[in-house]
């Protein structure tokens, strides 16, 4: 097995180290850092925007670049959190708490350095974890039939709702709304165009990018404008990057714990960078000397920054082995694979090993590039933060509109995106988390298809989902997750965890 791993990794590095792929990896992490640093544009909008462009790339270059954007954004987000007290990325929210305090005490340099070092360490570990655990998982997944896939998707959606912020009922309702929106378009079995009202553009279904860009991209701009901007940038105070020996000693444990927690939570359906960073910060606050938290504790930077990077990377595991996205970014990666004519699922690893291993190798290379990009070039990123938002958002809008338009050269798509922007604004105001909606949207057609097939195979016997062993276990876990969340004691701590 070890030999196979080395063999596979050597294939991967062979692919990832080609000049072309190195270039796209660099471009991806550079762009990722850029959008990570800039508040108001995240990896979802950026990847959505670049999807049409990837059509002209080779599949492996496209995936390497898009993956780089996601984990690159985790690095960039910490810079903004520490220097401006604004999360450049939602996963850096908790980094603001102690990172900004460190910056106010004139210790921005060590905070940034520890964040980058922790991220690099976590990125390396997560890469190894993917390489070790993905192949056996894919082997199990190859045995899956329609019933197992349906149950797996139920588990994924339940996971996404349980881990979403706020009310559980609302999160479930958002998931179902997403499933329903995913059903819009021509039904593959009967050829009937559902919910299209004679609009030809709708009979092909709503494009995933339209929903994601509207609900995330446009909505974010609208909400940002409503809140107005108030920024205090510690531009001139970044002096002395090197952390002291004591900083390193203090944070090493936090980095290890953050990495472990982030790697585990990234694999969970609904998990990823955001959840990992919250959980790591909460854990850190329960261990050892807690008196300095909120007042510039370096562990409060090290743990969440390691965790979000680890989580961002291990969330590729369910995508690469099962073909199931665990968060909106992974859903976009599925879209990218489909554009390239690759059906995501366990067969990717056996049929296209160069794709799978090339991407994993590129993650390690990309992490190395990120440390180089982030530490010495920090001054450049800081300058970017002085660009006022009133100039930034029209530019972001232009990129979004061009991206959506080029999906199929249809003005209708741009208009529909605008309407989803409105819907997204209403969601935010009503405290309805949009992430479960997006997951439901991408899984809707797949779930319906597998449900139909499973029911046809079992001749209408719905108990098949519980009597088949794998399917039964998956549904059992889903039910257990729901019950645990509904238990009042957990409900209380869950609220606390998200309030902080």
């Amino acid at each position, binding site marked *: 097995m070890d030999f196979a791993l080395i063999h596979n990794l050597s294939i991967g590095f062979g692919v990832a180290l080609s000049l072309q792929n190195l270039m796209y990896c660099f471009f991806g992490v550079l762009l990722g850092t850029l959008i990570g640093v800039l508040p108001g544009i995240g990896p979802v909008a950026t990847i959505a925007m670049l999807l049409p462009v990837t059509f002209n790339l080779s599949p492996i270059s496209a995936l390497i670049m898009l993956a780089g954007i996601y984990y690159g954004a985790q690095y960039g987000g910490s810079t903004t959190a520490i220097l401006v007290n604004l999360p450049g990325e939602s996963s850096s929210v908790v980094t603001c708490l102690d990172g900004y305090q460190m910056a106010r005490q004139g210790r921005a340099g060590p905070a940034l350095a520890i964040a980058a070092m922790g991220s690099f360490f976590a990125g390396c570990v997560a890469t190894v974890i993917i390489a070790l655990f993905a192949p056996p998982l894919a082997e199990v997944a190859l045995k899956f039939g329609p019933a197992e896939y349906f149950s797996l998707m139920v588990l994924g959606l339940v996971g996404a709702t349980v881990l979403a912020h706020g009310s559980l009922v609302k999160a479930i309702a958002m998931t*179902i709304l997403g499933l*329903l929106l995913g059903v819009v378009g021509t039904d593959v079995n009967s050829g009937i165009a*559902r919910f299209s009202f004679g609009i030809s553009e709708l009979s092909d279904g709503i494009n995933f990018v339209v929903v994601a860009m509207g609900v995330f991209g446009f909505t974010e701009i609208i909400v940002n404008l409503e809140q107005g901007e108030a920024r205090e940038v510690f531009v001139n105070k970044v002096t002395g990057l090197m952390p002291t020996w004591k900083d390193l000693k203090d944070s090493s444990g936090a980095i290890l714990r953050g990495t472990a927690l982030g790697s585990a939570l990234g694999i969970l359906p609904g998990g990823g960078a955001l959840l990992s960073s919250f959980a790591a910060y909460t854990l850190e606050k329960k261990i050892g000397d807690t008196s300095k938290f909120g007042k510039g504790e370096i562990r409060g930077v090290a743990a969440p920054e390691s965790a979000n990077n680890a989580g961002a990377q291990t969330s590729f595991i369910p995508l690469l082995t099962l073909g199931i996205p665990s968060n909106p970014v992974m859903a976009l990666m599925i879209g990218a694979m489909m554009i390239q004519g690759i059906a995501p699922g366990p067969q990717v690893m056996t049929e296209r090993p160069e794709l799978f291993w090339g991407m994993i190798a590129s993650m390690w290379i990309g992490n190395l590039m990120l440390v180089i990009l982030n530490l010495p070039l920090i001054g450049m990123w800081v300058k970017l933060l002085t660009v006022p938002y009133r100039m930034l958002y029209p530019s972001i809008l232009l990129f979004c509109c061009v991206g959506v338009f080029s999906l199929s050269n249809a003005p209708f798509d*741009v208009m529909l995106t605008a309407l989803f922007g409105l819907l997204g*604004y209403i969601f935010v105001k009503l405290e309805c988390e949009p992430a479960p909606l997006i997951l439901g949207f991408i899984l809707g057609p797949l779930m319906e298809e597998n449900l139909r097939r499973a029911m046809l195979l079992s001749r209408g016997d719905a108990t098949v989902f519980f009597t088949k062993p794998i399917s039964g276990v998956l549904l059992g876990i889903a039910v257990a997750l729901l019950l645990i969340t509904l238990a009042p004691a957990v409900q209380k701590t869950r609220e606390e965890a998200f309030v902080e």
Partner: protein
Amino acid sequence: MHIKNGKDFWAGLMFVGFGVWFMLVSLNYPMGSAVRMGPAYFPTVLGGLLAVLGGMVFFRAFFSKIDHPFKVFAFRPLLLVAAIVVGGATYFASDLLKDAPMVEFALTGLALLLFVGAFGPRSMFLILLACGIFGYALKPLGLVLSIVILIVVSAAGGHDFRKIEIAYLTVGLVLFGVLVFVKGLGLPFNLWPGE
């Protein structure tokens, strides 16, 4: 009854509305059976579930321990009514308007504008308007003019509109758009009207 949680109240209504709407529209398609599910099966079941969950959220609004004001965001009911009237009239008069597609297009557009204008702050209206115009102007007017419209209209949605700054930004983005989108990425946009 006193509504304690305005956010739950409206969210519940929204979910019930979506659920019932999906169920009603599904009536037009064959239901099939559990063995051979028709196109209506999946959306009907899910629509029903959504309506039930929406009802739970709605009733929770009256007993919630969390207080939120009834008015969650700016809402202009008159504009919404106007949007429904114009949109409905256009839909039912579509046979009459067959020979005048431009009139139908304009009426649909008006209904959408009224609809978007019924919710939220002024900046949202301007931003979404800018995007909508951009989409429909790109082919007839070309990339250059469309970018100018998008930037100027969306910038008007900000807090302070600085003419000179916006002029520089517009010129910069037009150059960027032409060089990167058209020359670099090879996207099939015409630059000027009627090309």
